[in-house]
């Protein structure tokens, strides 16, 4: 049985705001299925005493102190922006997200 369906790939593409054609859906669903099945094989060899891993380094509690560090200037902050207006990033309106 496939690990991921064509419908799920279409759903993920929509959530990711990716325009995917019908042909691409077929192709990606197949490719993603291979990847997921390969990863799933790790689960077959992992014993019950091996917890799922989210971090590759065995570290916890890495913190910084609450001490201010210099920020970028407004010009620096906006320097990589495609568009800006009065010190703010200017972006196209976002549809269907709110209201």
């Amino acid at each position, binding site marked *: 049985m496939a690990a991921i369906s064509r419908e799920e790939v279409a759903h993920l593409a929509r959530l990711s705001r990716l325009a995917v054609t019908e042909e691409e859906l077929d192709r990606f669903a197949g490719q993603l299925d291979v990847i997921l099945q390969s990863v799933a094989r790790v689960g077959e060899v992992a014993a019950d005493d091996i917890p799922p891993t*989210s971090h590759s380094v065995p570290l916890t509690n890495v913190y910084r102190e609450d001490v201010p560090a210099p920020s970028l200037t407004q010009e620096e902050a906006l320097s990589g922006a495609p568009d800006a207006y009065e*010190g703010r990033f200017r972006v196209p309106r976002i549809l269907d997200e709110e209201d």
Partner: protein
Amino acid sequence: MTYEEILTKYEPVVGLETHVELGTRTKMFCGCKTDFGAEPNTQTCPVCLALPGALPVMNRAAIAATIQIGLALNCDIAEWCRMARKNYFYPDMPKNFQTSQYDEPLCVEGYVDVVVDGKEYRIGIERVHIEEDTGKTLHVGGATGRIHGATESLVDYNRAGIPLVEIVTKPVPGLGSLAPEIAKAYVAELRDIVRALGVSDVRMEQGSMRCDVNTSLNLPGEEWGTRTETKNVNSLRSVERAVRSEIIRQAAILDDGGKIFQETRHFQETTGDTRSGRSKETATDYRYFPEPDLVPIAPAPEWVAELKAALPEKPSVKRARLREDWGISEVDMQSVANAGAVELIEETIAAGSSAAGARKWWMGELARRANELDVDLAAVGATPAQVAALQKLVDAGKLNDKLARQVLEGVVAGEGDPAEVMASRGLEVVNDTGALTKAVDEAIAANPEIAAKIRDGKVAAAGALVGAVMKTTRGQADAKAVRDLLLERLGVS
């Protein structure tokens, strides 16, 4: 159906999600400052702008504050938990995700007790977790400033990445018609608890404390109904109004045989009702997964014990102490707390007012005014210092009760401090004996029959003449002084 009729038929279930912006000096994952009101995009860096390769590091003070909030809400503190990415597309976060917590919150299973109408209610706390605030978007091109009709959005990322604590209650059934008041009392108590910790200024009007209210209705004995989530609830009073209006709205639909849809609604400050927003995305749509750039949080038991030992006096304990100092009943103290007036009265007393005077103004005239204006007491337009100054003028005999109320009206209207309003409106008590004597003599001359009765010993009739004098002095005389003078002039004192 009236509100009362609705509540005899349906049972409400209420839940609250409250966001508290922490008052740390720097952001959650970078050293950018968090000053309110700075020029746009002057408190940003590669981390909070999500520039490629930037790596976040957690702010220890923010973790400590979250643990303290959890402890103050009687929560268990997780021995180990992780941050998670909440993925979504909206330009208020430059990363296209918000760093939050998902199935492993830092604090779980707590409670807050609130008292309404003399009865105690326990509000269960499901979770307290740490996340980051979003940037501020300004929609331009539309007429209303809202996204509808807007042609573009302008974004300021100064707020993006400021530590934000989310406090989620369990769904609370069994509150009946008091659900709106209890919801408000819970938020007031939560605010007082967090304020006492000193980890946030918890100012709803400035957005450092924000509330989402979940409401559903069901028939007795049936399963809980579908809930709606009301956002944009930004004052204590709005919490109460939002719950009430949502109960009324849902009951009308259910009574019509309709269905409630799970959706986000927006509270309208002006009308006091809610308006439909987007339908709620399901949890899986956010594609949460453990944040790979941040290592797990595993607070040492010693650290948690240290934070617990450092907790300040609980607001409920403090209230008991203040109640003794002020010499008032438990019921009165509870109404003071539920009105959000504890600190205001405390500060008024600290500014030199008597306890009775401070409480009288805040719980009387100012509470009534706040109610009329539909604002929180703290935003009514008078400060504790001004109320203390007013009470001092009363104590000094310069204002009587009636005049003081007029002065307060001027203060609330922004006419200045009490002394200024008293002077500009000409409201000082008439202590000039000459003017008073003239007014008294005129009253006697105008009412010879009443004057005769008083001379014959019917002192009770004096009230009518005192009233006449108060009228001619436009209330600016001391009634007792007028009475004494009147009896003296009639030779019966």
